[in-house]
């Protein structure tokens, strides 16, 4: 598993995002036990306190829960995971629209473009 930390945003936020993505994509399955803070910190090459903070944030978000003696687990609440997935999708789409507007496209044009490109790529895959 690869961790990518870029330089100008808070490290714990980037850790939260990357673990969240692993939960949403199913790389971490519901109910899975998560490695210890120290192991995760080593894997990501980050400070253990920072990893601890990221996991606490994921707990607060409800994506991860802690069991006092046996460690941390991924939530078994699929609704919660779906919710996180949707939130992330909205965020991605917002960002995309923002960029397209900077390029000078209107909403209708953007949608038309998406449909065209989507149609084309289907054409390719079928041929």
């Amino acid at each position, binding site marked *: 598993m690869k961790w990518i930390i870029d*330089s*100008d945003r808070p490290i714990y936020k980037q850790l939260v995002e990357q673990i969240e993505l692993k939960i949403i994509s199913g790389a971490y399955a519901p109910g899975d036990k998560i490695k210890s803070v120290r192991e995760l910190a080593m894997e990501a090459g980050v400070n253990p306190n920072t990893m601890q903070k990221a996991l606490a944030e994921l707990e607060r978000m409800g994506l991860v829960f802690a069991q006092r003696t046996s460690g941390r687990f991924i939530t078994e609440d699929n609704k919660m995971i779906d919710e996180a997935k949707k939130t992330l999708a909205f965020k991605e789409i917002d960002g995309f629209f923002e960029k397209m507007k900077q390029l000078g496209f209107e909403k209708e044009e953007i949608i038309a473009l998406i449909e065209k490109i989507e149609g084309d790529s289907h054409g390719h895959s079928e041929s």
Partner: protein
Amino acid sequence: MAILRAKALTKKFGNLSALSNLDLDIPRGRIIGLLGPNGSGKSTFIKLATGLLVPTSGEITIGGATPGVETKAMVSYLPERTYLNDWMRAEDMMAFFGDFYEDFNRIKADNMLQDLNINPRDRLKTMSKGTKEKVQLILVMSRNAELYLLDEPIAGVDPAARDYILNTIITNYKENASVVISTHLIADIEQVLDDIIFISQGEIKLISTVDEIREKHNKSVDGLFREVFKC
């Protein structure tokens, strides 16, 4: 309670003020970067903490005690330059450290030598500069200390060894111990730090957590450093 405490700490060399009026608490369980341009007072601070230098005025304490025999048992120090004898073999130095420090973990040291492909039978004088630095760092990190003071620990080693060293610092992390790393290679170590202390011309310019800096300035500690200390 803080593991290291400095109050109005001042060190002068003749007319030159290397550190002036430094107030600082270093809590336990943190990995701290001591950052500053050349000649800012980083090494002077560390030498005061180890007892190699004595303050001109003010005070510095480790676990409540003035640097001395008692604090040397708590502090594991990696100096800028090696003090080990050239004729010694890596294994001699391990034995030497084992004799000197009660908290020295020989097994850990042997494992690290092996991980870094260093032959314990090799003499210091036959080793490259980078390998010598690795041996020294192994000695220092194999102690079960309460405070690690690492003066430029990664300057001379290759990137793969640097990763290994940083990983060692992470795995070695303990809630009751702190690590102070002085360096100007910030970008390489930023991710493993809790806090940073910027010092310049013998004074503290900024104390912050790494993530606070990133949050506030939208740039890395390295980026901020380059901006603040632009030549």
